[in-house]
């Protein structure tokens, strides 16, 4: 069998090599685009699954980047605005978004769910709420207003996530532009990128620079703060509903525990002050 010469053949060979890798790591399973990674099984399979995730991240980025370079033509730098290369540039941009969003609240699936999203997951009301905008009245008035507050908080949170996602898209576009400039920079030709790892490092470097430029800005801080506050709002509404329910069954609530905690801590501080005063006055046991 001869060596492939067309870029598409090389990419096919790459994909096949990667597929072989995944099947060796977890026999019978391989990640498919948009389908996520295999379900965790026994300990070995779980370790393999994590490695696949990291491997797919690394190889996925380098594959997209290398594909772009191949499409642009060997020896040519890809220009960010080149229409012919839009699909490849979009692919790279998506990789940046995935990388940024893994922790920040807009990641799509699986383990990539951020700590924020995990906290919010249980707070989302399910199903449609036809009376979301209705003025509340009647015997169930209080329940309706509680539901409406929950809906409003959910909508606020979803908007905040969406706004954050939009910001990340812009940062990712900037990162792609930086990447294109870096690859094309005539001054950098003396510092060639001669391996896939170096290609990945360049991707990281450009991504981090674009991210840092945004992250230090006031817009980022404001969007992040809104995401934070929206989530807290949502959780607070959920907690309130749970507490109302607990009170009807005469179960202890977090608010009551907090009150007890505060009183106890104040008492402990007072005891400490008295002990210190006692010591200062030369007191001692027996």
């Amino acid at each position: 069998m001869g060596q492939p010469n067309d870029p598409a053949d090389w990419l096919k060979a790459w994909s096949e090599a990667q597929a072989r890798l995944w099947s060796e790591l977890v026999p019978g399973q391989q990640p498919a685009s948009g389908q996520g990674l295999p379900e965790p099984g026994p300990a070995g399979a779980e370790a393999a699954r994590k490695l696949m995730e990291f491997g797919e991240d690394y190889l996925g980025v380098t594959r997209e980047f290398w594909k772009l370079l191949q499409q642009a033509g060997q020896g040519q730098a890809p220009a960010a605005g080149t229409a012919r290369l839009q699909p490849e540039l979009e692919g790279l941009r998506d990789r940046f978004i995935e990388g940024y969003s893994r922790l920040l609240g807009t990641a799509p699936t699986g383990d990539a769910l951020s700590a924020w999203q995990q906290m919010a997951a249980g707070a989302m009301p399910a199903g449609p709420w036809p009376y979301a905008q209705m003025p509340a009245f009647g015997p169930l008035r209080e329940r309706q207003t509680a539901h409406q507050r929950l809906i409003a908080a959910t909508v606020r949170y979803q908007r905040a996530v969406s706004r954050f996602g939009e910001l990340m898209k812009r940062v990712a576009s900037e990162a792609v532009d930086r990447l294109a400039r870096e690859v094309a920079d005539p001054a950098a030709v003396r510092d060639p990128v001669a391996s896939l790892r170096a290609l990945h490092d360049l991707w990281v470097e450009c991504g981090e620079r674009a991210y840092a430029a945004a992250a230090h800005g006031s817009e980022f801080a404001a969007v992040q703060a809104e995401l934070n506050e929206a989530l807290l709002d949502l959780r607070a509404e959920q907690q309130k509903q749970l507490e109302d329910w607990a009170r009807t069954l005469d179960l202890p609530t977090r608010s009551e525990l907090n009150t007890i905690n505060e009183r106890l801590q104040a008492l402990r501080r007072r005891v400490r002050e008295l002990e210190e005063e006692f010591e200062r006055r030369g007191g001692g046991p027996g």
Partner: protein
Amino acid sequence: MSRVSISPEQALAEVAEFGRRLARAVPALAAAGEPGAGCSARDAVWQEDKVVLYRYRPLVERAPGPPLVICYALVNRPYMMDLQPDRSLIRGLLERGVDVHLIDWGYPDGADRCLALDDYVNGYLHRAIGRACAASGVPAANLLGVCQGGTLSLCYTALHPERVRNLVTMVTPVDFHTPDNLLSKWARNLDVDRMVQVLGNVPGELLNATFLSLMPLRLTSQKYAGVADIIDDPVALANFLRMEKWIFDSPDQAGAAFAEFIKWFFQENRLVLGGLQIGGRRVDLEDLRCPVFNVWASEDHLVPPSASKPLRGLTGSADYSEFEFRGGHIGIYVSGRARETVPPAIADWLAVR
């Protein structure tokens, strides 16, 4: 002209090699086992609530002088100071005869959410130092504050100068409003009272996500791609796993103390601008008159040097020294270079005071 010069054959070969390495990773990780936490022998000498004071057993004859109490940050676990024999600041100090004590703040839970900075500084820290002093028969201890623990140590020393003979601060934020401090920029927009009201204690996982999001691609992508490089090196792999354990072993933060720390330091920068009170007592760094040794890391992305350096000129000490470590916030504890330079610098500085 592109600066990328990777032939298709080379790319394919790299993918295949990466695959082979990853395939070896599963048995290699299984063989590495669960990493331990801390490596030097020690005894618990005092405990209150979840806070424990440890005294390390000597490796050589103890040098004369007061004990050294290490006050670690409330964030993350203090075994970072004693991660493994060849990467242990504590071991480096023990080898130089320092009588090392370490405060372990434990893992706060829901019952601790009302603990305030007053409880930590004037309560636990004060009593831990009192215990260390009493055991050694001295009126004052040497205090080594690390990161946030350094900030708490500065406050403590200003409030209780009679209890601190010498103060060492490591990677300690002092000025929280320097332009390169990203964490501070983010924290300034936080409605932290609301946050604590809703969350109670602040989850360690949330703090971790925040720290990682300072450099998301480097810390969640590039780092793990690098695992393929060390998969055939059991020592490097064990080091990696130990670091991973430490990074993600993050205690929740007692709500009240967290809120005070964010507001007073990150948002209002009171250590520099004034107006800080802990337990109803004014904290003024001018009141800190003991010798001070300020250690920072030149590449620190969490506590940039610009946040640590302003300590010079803020204290009332006539004996102020500095030490710059060339490395990052983590490297200062665990790198080979740190092991060779940081413990000797601290021990030598203490030895003549």
